[in-house]
């Protein structure tokens, strides 16, 4: 049905001899990725470093990352899902329609060659970026490459990993996952977590205007989200916690300046492979940390009566 077969970047460094970057431009967006983890480092089972590894880049245009690649496959925009579907069929020796494969901008021979390389490597890794996960098809594009990587384990060791960025997005997923069981798109209104992306995910909620207040932590939706979502944020009470004034602060009712995590506040950041890394601040800040502000807001909220009648009884019993 799905699921992610993955590993840490240390394992990639020490084992991976076949590396695919799909819909991402690591040369410009993750500039240390090649040199620290995937390409140039010598690893325990890849003693020759770059010579012992093959890299394939799949993207819609020839970005600077293509220079680092052994093979560049240019897929037509919006045809990633079709290409992965054809690859999955070829992996299993199933027939595909050559005319429809050609619409992806690649030939069946190119895809077959790609599949042969994937099957014959010792340890393959597929990194996928926003060019895949944020274009038409979205979660299904990601699901299809995750399924491809999982299915390749019938032939060799193969893993997949999203190329995350922007601060601590992986950390948010990890924490929500181990506290509620779900990574995002969670509703706690009924007193227990419910998961339904599309119904409860932030952008859908804001676009439909289904919430009447927002608390924004470590994000700037005012700069990235569609106009109806931004208008809803401006219309309803919005609280922003951020070290600097962001686009969202300008439309929010309250902005609380906090210390910058990693610069003037300690904390934990999750690397894209979900390895937690401690942060030690180099400077002192006059502002409170995000954690401190959240703790004080929570203490104030806890003094109010609980919204569920049953929970009120429980709280009274505890007090």
């Amino acid at each position: 049905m799905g699921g992610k077969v993955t590993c840490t970047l240390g394992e990639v460094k020490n084992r991976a001899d076949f590396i695919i970057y799909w819909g991402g431009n690591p040369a410009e967006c993750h500039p240390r990725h090649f040199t620290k983890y995937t390409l140039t480092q010598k690893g325990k089972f890849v003693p020759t470093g770059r010579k012992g590894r093959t890299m394939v880049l799949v993207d819609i245009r020839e970005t600077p990352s293509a220079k680092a690649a052994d093979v560049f496959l240019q897929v037509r925009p919006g045809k990633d899902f079709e290409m992965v579907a054809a690859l999955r069929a070829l992996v299993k020796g199933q027939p595909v329609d050559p005319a429809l494969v050609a619409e992806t901008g690649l030939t069946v021979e190119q895809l077959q060659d790609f599949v042969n390389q994937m099957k014959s490597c010792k340890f393959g890794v597929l990194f996928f970026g926003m060019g895949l996960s944020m274009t038409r098809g979205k979660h299904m594009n990601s699901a299809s490459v995750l399924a491809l990587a999982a299915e390749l384990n019938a032939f060799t060791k193969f893993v997949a990993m999203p190329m995350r960025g922007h601060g601590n997005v992986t950390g948010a997923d990890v924490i929500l996952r181990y506290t509620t069981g779900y990574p995002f798109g969670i509703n706690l209104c009924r007193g227990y977590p419910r998961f339904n992306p599309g119904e409860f995910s932030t952008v859908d909620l804001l676009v439909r205007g289904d919430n009447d207040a927002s608390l924004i932590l470590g994000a700037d939706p005012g700069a990235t989200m569609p106009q109806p979502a931004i208008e809803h944020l401006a219309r309803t009470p919005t609280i922003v916690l951020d070290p600097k004034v962001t686009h969202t602060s300008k439309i929010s009712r309250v902005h609380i300046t906090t210390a910058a995590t990693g610069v003037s506040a300690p904390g934990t950041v999750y690397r894209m492979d979900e390895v937690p890394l401690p942060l030690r601040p180099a400077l002192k800040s006059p502002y409170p940390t995000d954690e401190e502000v959240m703790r004080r807001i929570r203490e104030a909220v806890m003094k109010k009566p609980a919204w569920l009648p049953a929970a009120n009884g429980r709280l009274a019993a505890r007090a």
Partner: protein
Amino acid sequence: MITLTLKQQPVVPLEAENLSPDVLAPLTHDAIRALPVYHGKHQCRLDEFFDVDGEASDQLTVRGDCTKVKWLGRAMTRGKLTVQGHAGMHLGAFMKGGVIEVQGNASDWVGAEMSGGLIRVSGNAGGQVGAAYRGSMSGMKEGTILIGGSAGLEVGMRMKRGTIVIGGPVRDFAGLQMKGGTLFLLQGAELRTGAWMIRGTIVSMKPLNLLPTFLPACTYRPSFLRLYTRFLRSLECPLPVGMHGGSYQRFTGDASVPGKGEVLVWQA
């Protein structure tokens, strides 16, 4: 006959899974008025949002623009729910029997994971019609969903049995990961129809942009479609002309699974 009239638009979605004939049928007027509904995180009485008329009946009518009222007719097994206006998300989810009729539009997840009964929406529906919830193995297992207008993404996702008819155009991923059942697309679909399908039938009256993993098998006139025509005519949902004339091109897929689903595309 019970009539509920929306008197006050909820600010945030109102979760009203109690508004089903099964729950209302044994209740007195006062008990219906006191039923809990959830307005965001607050538990409220039904009569804070609806004017209640009538009691003790499994014929339920909801009036007004209920776009923000979720879970209408959840898990109902009998009776009839009529929505005179629009309905919100999860209309008729987990339904086992009875009839739902919506005279306006419905939102996402119409008839999700239903296992019997009939849902008829005159207007448009959202995405995930008759679908499986996230993380669930199968979508609708029996029953019929008739949508007069258009529908959104992932229609019939992981459906196992039953029939869905969409009168208007459908967006991407119709019949995603379908395991059985029949999906009629009277105005065709956008992209990636039948992606990951394992079994089941998608019938389209318009040409489709199929995935490269669907291969043409033959052109024929499937006799079983006559049964469907008769069945749908009995539900006053006639399939358009051409069911008797013309023929269907059959595609099989999705080879990436690999699956044995069929996509039938009507040809004049």
